[in-house]
């Protein structure tokens, strides 16, 4: 404290701009909390439309996390540990969905998996499988936008734990599979958990890709964000209540991750 004081007062313009930034971030959330019709909160929470949307959001975000862990872990391992031609190209491709506007992701998914899509067409003609406008489509859209968060987080953890312990395990007679299971993954576990939490957070907030690829059908593809969008047209009060529910969920995730990212070094 005394050392800080010895450096002089913080410059006024800096303090002023920081205050504007903080206001911009905090005020909308505060008004949401204040303006939520808490009286009707519980009864709204019990309505069929809300329960359906909550159920679909919970189910699809859970399946998204499972999909990311099951498919993303091998991909992250491959990117971190195996030298193959086109590795850096593949890593770049994996990161594209991070910066892609979600609506564009949805259009891309329709192009690939839509009923007349490049992959979806043959899929429909031969197996009779139609993906768009199903709950499966919601999961695919969510996995598409969430996977990069998971893969990058796990790949980073695999890289920082290093190949050193893989070498030690090999000198002790371990196969690559045993090494992955007993050494590499346990050491990368913080990255796996952080990646899963990020993927989950991305999934429950997903709107653009979902509504483009899966639509907005109550009971099958209407997630919480889609329901909020719909109700905002007619009943803003309900939209605020639903938003409050998602805000609480997001803050809960943030609290769970606090120890990893929010603790100042």
């Amino acid at each position, binding site marked *: 404290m005394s050392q800080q004081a010895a450096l002089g007062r913080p410059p006024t313009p800096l303090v002023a701009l920081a205050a504007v930034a903080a206001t911009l971030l905090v005020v909308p959330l505060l008004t949401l909390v204040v303006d939520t019709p808490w009286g009707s909160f519980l009864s709204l929470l019990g309505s069929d439309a809300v329960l359906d949307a909550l159920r679909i959001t919970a189910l699809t975000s859970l399946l998204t996390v499972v999909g990311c862990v099951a498919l993303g872990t091998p991909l992250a391992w491959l990117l971190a540990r195996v030298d193959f031609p086109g590795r850096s190209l593949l890593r770049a491709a994996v990161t594209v969905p991070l910066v892609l506007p979600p609506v564009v992701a949805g259009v891309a998914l329709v192009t690939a998996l839509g009923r007349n899509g490049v992959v979806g067409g043959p899929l429909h003609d031969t197996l009779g499988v139609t993906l768009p406008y199903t709950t499966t489509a919601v999961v695919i859209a969510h996995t598409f936008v969430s996977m990069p968060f998971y893969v990058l987080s796990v790949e980073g953890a695999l890289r920082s734990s290093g190949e050193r312990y893989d070498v030690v395990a090999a000198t002790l007679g371990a196969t690559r599979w045993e090494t992955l299971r007993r050494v590499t993954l346990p*050491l990368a576990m913080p990255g796996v958990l952080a990646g899963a939490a990020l993927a989950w957070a991305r999934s429950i907030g997903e709107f653009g890709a979902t509504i483009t690829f899966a639509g907005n059908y109550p009971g099958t593809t209407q997630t919480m964000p889609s329901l909020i969008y719909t109700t905002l047209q007619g009943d803003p009060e309900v939209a605020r209540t639903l938003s409050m529910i998602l805000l609480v969920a997001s803050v809960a995730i943030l609290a769970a991750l606090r120890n990893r990212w929010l603790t100042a070094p």
Partner: protein
Amino acid sequence: MSGLSGLKADIVVPGRLDASVTAEPGAVVAVIGPNGAGKTTLLRAVAGLVEMHGEVTVDGESWTSPRRLVRDRRLGFVFQDQSLFPHLSALGNVAFGLRTRRTPRREAEATAHEWLERFGVGDLAGRRPAELSGGQAQRVAIARALAPDPGLLLLDEPFAGLDVGVATSLRLELARHLRDFAGVTLLVTHDALDALTLADQVLVLDDGAVAQAGTPREVAARPRTDHVARLVGLNVIREGDAYRSFSPRAVTVSLSRPEGSARHRWEGPVVSAVPHGDAVRVLVSAGPDLLADVTPAAAAELGLVPGRRVWLSVKETAVEAYAVS
């Protein structure tokens, strides 16, 4: 050499190492040499961790034709840096190599516990590596390497980074365990004491090639490289087709050109003067770098500070001469 047991290795790692080593079962081979001489490369090549040409045969089985994966070479490797798995207990670390070789969990843990007891760290079995001291961790690492009963033990500077006292007691313990170990041990070290106390054979590497091989006594008495001469505290110079070695204690330091019968004379500036036992050890850049031990009184009288030009001489009777192999 029966050719069927022990270690026989001819190793070429392009640009870094070209060396051969043979050893009987139970032998301990100290590998010494300056930094960058290829000591660690030799161990890593034997272990299959670097690309190499040539042959490695252990107990009559070739590890190189066809090339065996690292995991299929029955070896124990103690790495230079503390390389215990941080997420496993000491017991879990030692049991690891037993579990990968299909030992049932209970049996593996019982054997691992015996090994920890043998190294005097049995009561630390439940601790994570972060909760162990350097000496304790290195004991666990050596126990981990020995537990699966390897045919070859590779130790890469096992005492580096330990306090002198800890290193000394660990060195004595290791000597005892190596006597019981039936396979060949390759021990990379920077310390002449390791080579003299632990090894049956010494392999001196210099610039990626074998500069000298022999028993510790031979190598210490008749060093063929500056590096080993320094390690054992001798001066060594090469004259034509012979080496001449002599102790720093036999060197006389004077400020003027010595008269009389001394045949070997050099002149040059003092590089350093540091206490060495009850003497002062002076390093002089006299063509070859030479060491001379003088009494503290003489050092003060001669004013032996860095930069001071002095004459060194040694009597022929104090010099041992031996042929360049």
